[in-house]
């Protein structure tokens, strides 16, 4: 009897351990769609990009990553892209509905990698047109941020349109010349700040709230101030982890 019980609790502990390990893994993995190794994006761009990808992911359930690298380590960008895509596992595993924009500013190469599941909406010709019209012209002026913003916008809007899904915030149909002005309205920042203030006020009212506030303040000062703006950006609800999707080399590459 005792033996059976201990066996039972052992499995229980093992299951709990496994679950907590998994959640911590997916947690450290999550909340990120932008991997700016090359350091060509400022927090304000990341904020806008996260918003755009956030709405698209919420509505379509597909996933997107933006990756910039300092160096491709001598690899062809096509090879690098397929491996990176698989490593991150962008898109849901059965659907393979991921999308990745990869930029290597030092090698002057870019690639838009389309997962198997999205190839039906974003064919190579369309992706190539988006690259030529929305990304390359800005990259030629060394304006990486605008190129990435416009390219991402065009990809997301076009994908949703092809699938017949509406993106109320991003808009649909014809692509505007400059999406940044439309998406990056200060209004949304104000709303975020407003909610932030309200939450602080609520927390200040109760005793436990005050201690929570104090501890989080302490934690944030210890963690350094640079993270602050990012936290603000994910106020509308963070991202889940990637789903383990694959790509098969669809999309388009380019140089400038």
């Amino acid at each position: 009897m005792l033996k059976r019980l201990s066996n039972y609790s052992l499995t229980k502990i093992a299951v709990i351990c496994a679950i907590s390990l998994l959640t911590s893994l997916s947690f450290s993995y999550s909340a990120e769609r932008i991997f700016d190794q090359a350091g060509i994006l400022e927090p304000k761009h990341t904020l806008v990009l996260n918003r755009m990808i956030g709405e698209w992911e919420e509505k379509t359930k597909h996933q997107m990553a933006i990756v910039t690298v300092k160096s491709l380590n001598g690899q062809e960008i096509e090879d690098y892209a397929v491996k990176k895509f698989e490593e991150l596992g962008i898109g849901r595993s059965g659907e393979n509905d991921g999308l990745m924009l990869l930029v290597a500013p030092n090698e002057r190469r870019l690639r838009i990698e389309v997962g198997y599941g999205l190839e039906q909406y974003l064919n190579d010709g369309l992706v190539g047109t988006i690259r030529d019209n929305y990304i390359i012209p800005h990259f030629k002026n060394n304006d990486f941020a605008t190129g990435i913003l416009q390219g991402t916008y065009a990809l997301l809007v076009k994908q949703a349109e092809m699938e017949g899904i509406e993106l109320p915030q991003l808009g649909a149909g014809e692509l505007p010349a400059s999406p940044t002005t439309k998406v990056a309205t200060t209004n949304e920042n104000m709303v975020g700040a407003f909610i932030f203030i309200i939450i602080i006020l609520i927390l200040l009212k109760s005793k436990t709230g005050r201690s929570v506030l104090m501890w989080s303040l302490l934690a944030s000062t210890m963690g350094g101030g640079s993270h602050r703006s990012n936290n603000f950006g994910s106020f509308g609800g963070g991202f889940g982890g990637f789903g383990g999707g694959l790509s098969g080399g669809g999309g388009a590459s380019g140089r400038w």
Partner: protein
Amino acid sequence: MNNKKLWITLGVIALFIIGSISWYIGTYNKLITMDESVNEKWAQVENVMQRRYDLIPNLINTVKGYAKHEKEIFENIAESRAKLAGASSAKDKMQAAQGIEGALSRLLVVVENYPNLKANENFTKLMDELAGSENRLTVERQRYNLSIKGYNIAIRKFPTSIVANQLGYEKKDMFQMEEKAKEAPKVNFN
């Protein structure tokens, strides 16, 4: 006493037989799974190959409008496509594919002489499709080769090779592209 010895011997033999059978079944199933996985990857290779070669008629029609007199190349491509259609084994298909890649790369070199064609929007899109299909072929080819590698090692290793022999499994060919065919159709976006 004697009886006990007999039972022990019988037990050992029974254990040995049971062990062998379960090993055999396990190996058999493993090999079948590997073979199936290789076939699946090859199907994917054929799939992207088909996609690539379906682009050719469209490409030729577009190019013909600008470069009527490059007849030889068009004929070359048509010939290699016919060969591919006639090929049944994986090996023949790989060879035919190399022929098409060679002819395609010559076509793309010729195209460089026609700036009007290169400015054609339809042609630009086709080139993107062509580059994409080439990249897809590379990816699926690599995945196929990787699965072949594991398969080839498994069927030749002793004692798995015994089961592989019984199943009639033979070494499969990797899909290698000739260097020339591999580099030529790289599309230049400048």
